[in-house]
């Protein structure tokens, strides 16, 4: 009996070494980004960025253009496109290392339910992948144009930009998980970071005028005036109603959204000098606390109360006026609050117009319902569109960086 037991254990140990049904890495092609565009006849153009393992590993790693390649396939679905990819790359395609889904604007406007709704069913996709929406062009063009300067691989560029979203608040980190949860939740609307291609001429395309008292212009993806570097830019937010793209938030509006969702960590704002309007004052802003949002229904109308508290650090005073002085400091704080309040109100008005609630303000009403059925029957979008919004912003300029006062410049006119 002991011999039999030992035999069974030995055989089992020998046969279970390694993995049954697994694949060696040199039998697999890893796809790192997927672009999806609308194609004629109800088809989709699927663009895969495929990495070449030999070009990315070790000291002999090559540049991004050589380390990966973009392949576009026209197919009736993502699943068929994946199978067709296999016919071209000679290895079994694996989508388990996909970092981002880039969706063309045309397809996004038609609705993403059919394109990305089924994704969570497939084991190679995970919620921690990102989703980006292309502004004004196709996903294929963005994937092909993406030539990171600092990073070796486009995936590193995606992870880097998404990871540093909190540095400015000009775009938001948008996981596929959050997008899908919003698609099926009873409140809130999906949103995604906006990407676009810059012309490279150095000419800026402003997408909105600064609020009164502000000096910073507003941009959408591809609109920042640059020469050189990666032509692909990420800035702004794509707004959805259900699964359809219905609008876009500019850089400043996106920052306001970040303040509401609690994703804003820090960022610079240039405001008009309250005492000398031609000059600007640079403030490094950060949240003073989590935003307070109260939502109520009064006589059938949704009333939204928003209370934002910001903290600032003066990093530049072009006019030389002594804003370190408490009397002037208060004027500065009022100016910042007024600018942010105006930007916030403008952003919220726009989201109401397009019927999209990216800040998920509706969720603050959830505790008012007793049961899930009751909650699902409530028409949040209709209530949100006609809601009355009161925004309160207060700012405390707490620091003046490394200067405690500004001495005048001699002979300056």
């Amino acid at each position, binding site marked *: 009996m002991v011999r039999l*037991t030992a035999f*069974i*254990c030995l055989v*089992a140990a020998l046969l*279970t070494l390694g*993995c*049954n*049904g*697994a*694949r060696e890495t040199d039998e697999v092609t890893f796809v790192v980004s997927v672009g999806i565009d609308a194609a004629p006849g109800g088809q989709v153009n699927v663009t895969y960025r495929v990495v070449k393992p030999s070009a990315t590993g070790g000291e002999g790693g090559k540049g991004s253009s050589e380390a990966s390649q973009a392949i576009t396939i026209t197919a009736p679905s993502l699943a068929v496109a994946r199978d067709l990819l296999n016919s071209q790359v000679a290895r079994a395609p694996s989508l388990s290392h996909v970092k981002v889904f880039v969706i063309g604007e045309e397809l996004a406007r038609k609705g993403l339910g059919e394109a990305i709704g089924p994704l*969570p069913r497939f*084991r190679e996709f*995970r*919620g*921690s992948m990102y989703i980006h929406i292309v502004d004004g062009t196709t996903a294929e063009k963005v994937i092909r144009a993406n030539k990171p300067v600092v990073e070796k691989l486009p995936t590193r560029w995606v*992870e880097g930009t998404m*990871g540093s979203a909190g540095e400015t608040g000009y775009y938001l980190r948008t*996981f596929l*998980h*959050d997008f*899908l*949860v919003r698609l*099926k*939740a*009873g409140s809130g609307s999906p949103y995604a970071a906006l990407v676009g291609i810059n012309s490279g001429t150095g000419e800026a395309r402003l997408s909105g005028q600064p609020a009164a008292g502000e000096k910073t212009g507003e941009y959408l993806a591809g609109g920042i005036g640059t020469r050189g570097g990666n032509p692909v830019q990420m800035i702004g937010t794509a707004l959805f109603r259900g699964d359809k793209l219905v609008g876009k938030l500019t850089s400043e509006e996106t920052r306001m959204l970040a303040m509401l969702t609690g994703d804003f960590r820090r960022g610079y704002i240039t405001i008009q000098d309250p005492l000398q309007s031609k000059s600007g004052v640079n403030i490094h802003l950060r949240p003073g606390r989590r935003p307070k949002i109260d939502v109520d229904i009064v006589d059938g109308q949704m009333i939204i109360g928003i209370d934002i508290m910001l903290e600032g650090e003066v990093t530049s005073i072009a006019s030389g006026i002594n804003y370190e002085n408490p009397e002037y400091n208060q004027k500065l704080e009022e100016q910042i609050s007024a600018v942010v309040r105006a930007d916030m109100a403008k952003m919220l008005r726009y989201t109401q117009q397009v019927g999209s609630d990216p800040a*998920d303000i509706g*969720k*603050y009403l*959830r*505790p008012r*319902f*007793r*049961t*899930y*059925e*009751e*909650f699902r029957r409530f028409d949040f979008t209709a209530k949100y569109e006609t809601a009355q919004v009161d925004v309160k912003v207060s700012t405390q300029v707490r620091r003046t960086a490394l200067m405690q006062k500004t001495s005048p410049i001699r002979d300056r006119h």
Partner: protein
Amino acid sequence: MSYQPGRMGVAEGIGLTFVVMLPRVFLTSPAVTISSVHNLAWTAPLINWVVTLAVFWLLAKSTVHMGSDLYDVSRRLLGRPGAWVLALSYAALFILDAASLLRQFAENTLLTALPAAEFRLIIFWYILFAAVLVYFGIEGIARAAYLVMPFIVGGVAAVVLLLAPFYDVYRLFPWQGAGLWTAARRGLELAGLNFGVLLLLVLAPSFQKPSTIMTAAFFGGGVSALLRTLVILFFLLAFGVGVGMEKMLPFFEMSRLVYLSRYVQRIEALFIVIWVITGLLAIAINIFAALYLVARPLGLPSLRPLVPVIAMIVVNLAVIPSDIGAVVAADTRLVVLLSAGVYGGPLLLSAMAYRKGRRKKPWSA
């Protein structure tokens, strides 16, 4: 191997109870609960654990002075035919539980880890290892269960903590979910998830003292119920009801979603090991319990010759459902059937013990 399982203490009892009650938290069960109870689904494991513990305590209290196992107690209270029916019914439930777990763990291994593997091969490996474990006896399984317990608790806690960036407390609202009545009813219906705790009474003489059994039930089952509660609660916080009820494997989805930075992500492979070990041990424990309950009324001197037979029966039962949808539906019905086992036998035996005690009183007086 005699049918006598040997001597075990509190640690072994806790390990056995914990592992045999836990595996469905790694399967579709949390999503099925969310489908029916919605936002209040997290209370279901607590409700059914409290009720199960009460029933268990009642039975243990009324029969523990008899100092014998479930079959012996049934024989004294129900007579030999009654004890036969009860023992074989519970053996059947343990076998069905083992079969359902075997099929689900095999399917999910195919789904999550080895998509290109042959299904029959996976099910063969599972049952082979479970049979080998049973062959070595319940003491070894119990000690292995106790050893892996901290890793399972630590693993679940790690996933729950690492998912913190995805939580939104508003997803727990509306707090009544599908309604308080539905939550209470489903909570009671799902007592079958705690069916394994009866193992302590099946093997009662091995634990020597009534206090050992109660301590093992309280802590082993309690930690298991707490983990099930936490997994559903935090799953709801991360996914909400709408998406939560869609998922086939909620815990796997949770571990797959972990993303702290480019360096802390894609950690689900670590947790596949945890749930495979839990599943294997639970299948083995169920098979052992069934063997024991078959061997006792038949008066068999050893369980070992029956191991391959029961293993074959378990495999054959496991492959009956034609597809994964049928497997999940069958398991949902099985849990309700196991609930009948949790309530039925113990309440019947408690009532009989009470009746017998009342009858005896005039005699003793």
